[in-house]
């Protein structure tokens, strides 16, 4: 599957971008050209490639390249952890809603209600109560996107649960837990992977938006969203500076989206064999 993703040009591009993000985040743990939070009143608003500053400096004389590298850390961390939260929330709710027990319908409706709740609004409420932090952003983004995952996963699970092999397993005496583990989850895994790769892109965007609005990563931790917010007011005076965090956010979101698309193409057989009905993903083990 990995080979299939990398063979498509979009998949390769996405993988490269994501690899760069992870690399940047890892490198920033041990090295940045300058201390990203070090202010220097003697070198404010330096243009790129001056005084050893690759991308120049901001109004406090902080190195923009170092801030971007350190910001990658927050972005990568938030995206990854929010996606884990989304997976847990999504799968958990989907299983509760799909498995025919009393209460399943209620959970299904609950998911529909939660889907209608905007993620940013949820994050702002959480930030207002618990204070803005990386963790509030992670939880809010995880829950907000998790319910969307749950909605898709539930539909898939319901169709799997109606399959003959599930009936056969039930007749053979398998419990609900075993059926979910052995039949349902493996069968919805491809759909989940695609969904979660899209969650990664959404999480990057949501983190940037939250930090931009002041509800995400608190200062002085560098974050792309906060950089964008801090620098955009100078767009009329120093038009170039705001380009860097803006581009970083756009490119990384695009990278995750391309990767997600390529993953879907690679996994979903319908995309590979146009015009053909989808075969059963897996037969009885």
């Amino acid at each position, binding site marked *: 599957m990995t080979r299939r993703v990398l063979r498509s040009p979009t998949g390769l591009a996405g993988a490269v971008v994501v690899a760069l993000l992870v690399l940047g985040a890892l490198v920033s743990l041990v090295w940045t050209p300058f*201390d990203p939070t070090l202010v220097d*009143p003697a070198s404010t608003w330096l243009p790129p490639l001056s005084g050893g500053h690759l991308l120049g400096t901001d109004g*406090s004389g902080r190195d923009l390249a170092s801030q971007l590298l350190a910001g990658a850390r927050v972005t990568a961390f938030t995206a990854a952890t929010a996606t884990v939260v989304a997976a847990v929330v999504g799968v958990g709710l989907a299983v509760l809603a799909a498995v025919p027990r009393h209460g399943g319908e209620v959970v299904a409706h609950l998911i529909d209600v939660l889907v209608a709740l905007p993620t940013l609004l949820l994050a702002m409420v959480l930030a207002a109560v618990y204070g803005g932090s990386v963790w509030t952003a992670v939880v809010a983004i995880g829950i907000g996107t998790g319910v969307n995952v749950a909605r898709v996963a539930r539909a898939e699970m319901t169709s799997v649960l109606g399959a003959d092999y599930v009936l056969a397993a039930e007749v053979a005496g398998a419990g609900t837990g075993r059926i979910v583990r052995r039949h349902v989850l493996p069968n919805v895994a491809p759909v989940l992977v695609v969904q979660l790769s899209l969650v990664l892109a959404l999480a990057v965007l949501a983190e940037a938006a939250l930090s931009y609005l*002041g509800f995400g990563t*608190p*200062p*002085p931790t560098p974050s792309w969203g906060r950089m964008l917010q801090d620098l955009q*007011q100078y767009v009329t*005076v120093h038009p170039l500076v705001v380009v860097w965090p803006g581009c970083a956010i756009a490119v990384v979101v695009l990278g995750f989206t391309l990767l997600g698309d390529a993953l879907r193409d690679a996994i979903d057989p319908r995309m590979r064999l146009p015009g053909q009905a989808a075969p059963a993903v897996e037969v009885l083990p």
Partner: protein
Amino acid sequence: MIRVRRLVPLLLAAAVLAVACSGAESGGAGAPAADTTLDVRLVLEPTSLDITSVAGAAISQLLLDNVYEGLLTRDAGGAIVPLLAQDVSTSPDGLTYTFRLHDGLTFADGSPLTSADVVWSYRNVIAPESKNPNKADFAAVTGVDAPDPHTVVITLSRRDANFTYALTDRAAAVLKQGTDPATLAGTANGSGPFVIRSWQRGSSITLARNEHYWGQPANLSGVVLHYIPDTTAANNAQLTGETDVETGPDPTLLSQFQGPDFTVAEGVTSDKFVLGINNGRGPLADVRVRHAIRQAIDKDGLIRVALAGKGQRIGSGVAPTDPWFDAGLTSIDPYDPPAAKALLAETGFGSGLDLTLVVPNIYSARIGEYVASQLGQVGIRVRYEPVEFATWLDRVYTKADYDLSIVDHAEARDIGNYANPDYYWRYSDAQVQQWADQASTAASDAERDGLYRQVARKISEDAVSDWLYSPTSLVVLRAGVTGFPTRETNSRLDLAQVTASAAQ
């Protein structure tokens, strides 16, 4: 149809004639038009018009001098001058002030303003049930009396060296006797040169010239105060001519207003950005650690970074507007990171020190990030915590649960806070308390100023706080606007003298 067509040029000609005549009446070409309205950008909208019970600079900025007047006021240079009173005499013991009111004083509704209104207003301030936020300004007042309709006599329990200043401030606003306090939140009947015409909540307040004004009427026929909190939006409004005047522009963005169309006027403010230090807490109780903190922060650099140079160092808890301001105090604890490191090593914190920096999130993060970064350079690891202002009030101001804090002390003449051991700095010094006490009851301004200067020097030498800067008050004016106040524009904005030629 033909008749109508003929009528149009006729009407136009009549209109032109009318305009020309009205122009001639107001003094001919080039003179300020008598019916000009000015659009002004302000930042903070008041929540109420009730000057007697609601705190906040937005109310005094809007209402003082413009709508309500006191016995005294402050002129454009900050000097205390008579307003409703035409003169004042003081008894030799400094305990009795006698004011003679101007003749023919009136409120905006046309009714006369007499000493009875002053007595009623001021007795309300000192009444036990008074909710006036500036009640403390009148703490020494024991009696307010009116021997005749033109005379007001105020008696004090002790000398109060700041009493005439208090009479220029909002506690001294004179309201009409018998005004129902419940009506004050939405309406105002003052004696000032303007009246409140309308209030579009969340957007603007319109002032109209008070046609019954007892003194020299305002030059402008009206002023629309646009409340625009966002600096970029405010800049755009000024650049496009939506506003004629922009108060409180972002000093780092002033390059947009170069050229002949705009002037940027500068003035002083009573704002003091203070790096508060919890003097009662752990290592910060050691004066050497506090000196190290002060020496580690390059204030000139901060003024460049945060204000593009539009501010000044103050060196102590005194703003340039206060009579006892002493610019020489900036030489105490000059920027010297090696000396700061040496001091820290001497106190046993050479290997580092961990402190929290709690800052209300209403201020630009740039200030806190700058301070945290500079302290980091000498080995003080700062955990920077931006908090809501309400949280700051509770945690820092009330409970003193903090190490370092940054807040703008905007109040003028507030050095007395350093004599209060329960203030959030937790600084207690018997000498300072004695001097401040003597200063507040000093017999002359010179004696008072001398004592406050001693207090200012002592608290700077004790490194009670670090005083980051006092920002310059900035006003962007469209060409043709003159007489706009530049001093302390956040809390006082006398608009009566402003003139404006019609916008191009």
